[in-house]
């Protein structure tokens, strides 16, 4: 089975290590120890990475907003996330009197776990991965949809109208945006001819954001909606709903919500790196892991840029954008890519050569430019059709100046 191939850092090599030292008949202990160790590593790396990311985000957005950002605690304010977490830990953990306690307590965990689970199957390097799943793409699409339940659970259990409105908006929005997201990933699967993330990376002789730019743009738009960040942050909408579905949360539960929320861009960047930016591939002297991290940082920066500059759309405009805009664009992308793949691929192996990919890139860029121009024509730029201001006849301040 393909998923049993061992890597530099994965569950089976760790299991083998423990099994080697433990006496016979203690397999179960090796299993537990290996599982515990791997989970410990994943959770801590992700939590620390998210902590670093919050610092990065606050510094970058601070610079974009003509201010400094956190700079007091530690060099360049690097210890700020730790201070934040300590502060949240000592805060009182309140539960509203009428809240559904079980659902209320479990919601943050439901939100956090999928983000961590995704990491288990990501190829961080040719030999750095935890699990080699042969249906990785499907796993990602499935597991990232779970956060809808957490949003609804948190909002509903809080017994707060703001939280409820945020949760309802969240469910409508997250479910809608999963469709274009899954469709845009379908293009990747078609070209790679496989659902395994390793094959997807191996197939990217040309990075897929060049091969199918339309799919990439749809994916990024849908992903930023899935993360509920501007311009799609209707779930939280801090100027409208306070904090949206987690209005009533405090203390560590709030910290976990924040952690999951800040982990989302990290996870999204990682997924986008694997699917569209050729994962660990790069030029030789620098190892693949470094390339991976660099690409993740570039995508995170782009996401931050969008977050820092754009205002928010209204909920009905967001839904219209998903179903009338992104959905159509994703379908078109699938159609174009499918036709190209059918014509160009090797009939026996189903593989595409690099020159085939470059040809597809050329065609798809043309298609993308035309589509985006058409969409912009349909959806936007009615702004210059405003009438010329004319003074109202109801009042004339110059008439009385006698």
């Amino acid at each position, binding site marked *: 089975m393909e998923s049993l191939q061992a890597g530099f850092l994965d569950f089976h090599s760790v299991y083998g290590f423990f099994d080697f030292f433990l006496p016979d008949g203690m397999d179960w202990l090796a299993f537990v120890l290996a599982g515990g160790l791997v989970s410990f590593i994943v959770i801590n790396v992700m939590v620390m990475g998210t902590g670093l990311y919050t610092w990065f985000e606050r510094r970058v957005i601070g610079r974009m907003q*003509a201010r400094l950002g956190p700079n007091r605690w530690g060099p360049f304010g690097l210890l700020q996330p730790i201070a934040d977490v300590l502060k949240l830990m000592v805060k009182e953990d309140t539960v509203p009197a009428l809240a559904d306690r079980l659902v209320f307590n479990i919601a943050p965990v439901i939100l956090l776990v999928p983000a961590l689970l995704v990491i288990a199957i990501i190829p961080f390097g040719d030999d750095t991965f935890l699990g080699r799943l042969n249906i990785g793409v499907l796993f990602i699409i499935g597991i990232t949809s779970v956060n809808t339940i957490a949003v609804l659970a948190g909002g509903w259990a809080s017994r707060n*109208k703001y939280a409820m409105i945020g949760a309802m908006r969240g469910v409508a929005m997250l479910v809608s945006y999963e469709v274009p997201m899954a469709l845009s990933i379908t293009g990747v699967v078609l070209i790679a001819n496989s659902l395994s993330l390793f094959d997807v990376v191996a197939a990217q002789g040309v990075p897929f954001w060049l091969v199918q730019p339309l799919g990439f743009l749809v994916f990024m738009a849908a992903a930023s909606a899935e993360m509920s960040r*501007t311009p799609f942050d209707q779930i939280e909408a801090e*100027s*409208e709903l306070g904090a949206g579905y987690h209005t009533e949360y405090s203390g560590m539960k709030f910290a976990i919500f924040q952690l999951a929320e800040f982990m989302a861009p990290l996870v999204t960047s990682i997924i986008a790196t694997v699917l569209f930016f050729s994962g660990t591939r790069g030029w030789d002297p620098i190892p693949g892991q470094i390339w991976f991290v660099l690409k993740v940082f570039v995508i995170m920066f782009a996401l931050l840029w969008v977050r820092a500059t*754009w*205002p928010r759309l209204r909920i009905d405009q967001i839904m219209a954008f998903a179903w009338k805009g992104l959905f159509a664009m994703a379908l078109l992308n699938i159609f174009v890519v499918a036709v190209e793949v059918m014509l160009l691929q090797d009939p026996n192996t189903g593989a595409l050569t690099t020159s085939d990919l470059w040809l597809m890139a050329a065609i798809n860029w043309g298609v993308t430019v035309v589509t985006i121009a058409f969409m912009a024509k349909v959806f936007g*730029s009615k702004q210059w059709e405003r009438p010329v*201001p004319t003074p109202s006849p109801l009042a004339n*301040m110059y008439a009385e100046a006698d």
Partner: protein
Amino acid sequence: MSEMKSEPVILNLGPQHPSTHGVFRLRVTFDGETVVDAEPVMGYLHRGSEKLAEGRSYVQIVTLTDRMDYTASMSNNLAYVSSVEKLAGIDVPERAQYIRVICAELQRIASHLMATGFLLNDLGALATPLMYCFRERERILDMFEMLCGARITLTYMRPGGVLQDAPAEFWPALNTFVNDFPGYLDEIESLISGNEIVLTRTRDVGILTDAQAINASITGPMLRAAGVQWDLRKANPYEIYDRLDFDIPIGALGDTFDRYMVRVLEMRESIKIVEQCIRDIPQGPIRTGTPYFIRPPAGDAYASVESPKGELGFYLVSDGGISPYRCHVRAPSFINITALRDMLVGWKMSDLIIIFGSIDIVLGEVDR
């Protein structure tokens, strides 16, 4: 398919809410996301300024006016001292009038910057435009600090003039600001005015027609955005505004975008006014000798100015004593929100926030 049974939800927006710009409470009935009814509840910041004024001398009341519209203290001071001067018949030296106009226009820019920044914040722009607006507002506050040592509650104007002449370092700072500001305004506008999302959100949203605005006696940028060309600086010139050359920008539709745009255009006009004042300001005294305890003759007077929010007027009644018998404030913020319900009904919750934000109220002035 039968309709699903649903019932409206009553939501209390405020008094603690990020977008109520203070302690304002709006009792909104929602049908899903759509506003069915909205009822403002006021008085959370009521401090009884009008009653307090009855126990203070005319000079002391200036400090009370600072705390009404705390984003535009200079305009409040100006409105109040004009009223006292009219009541007691005090003349103001020309240099003081020029300084007053400079201050009032700088305060208008500061207030409009704040309104614009917070409108964009309500739109969900994560404080980026707000920070750019505040960066410029900070420079105006620095200049106020040079004038009188305070930044927000200024108490710079006195019946009969201003507290003190502008110090030497004020004029170079003002010159630099006047030269730089149009460029910075272009920068802020380049972030906002052409943004597709801003236009989608604000265009045709929350329309207030000219007839509605006049019926509700709305003044200020809201009235001008509805297309009514009415500005007290032209309609009833006070101080030295009749000598200055400036335009009154108006909007076309009266929607939220027009209210934003009128404020931006007004800031450009204000810079023109300040430039002319710097050019024309004469030398001379800045205050006529008035006693600390002014005893105006018995009678009443009403004077109003075009504050950043609208027509700000003080009605003072004197019985010949050292403090007014009655002081009434015509607060533009208070009167401008009377049309709130007409503007809100039928729009979505997100629109409610930006329509409310585009009115630009300050709760210190609403509740006084």
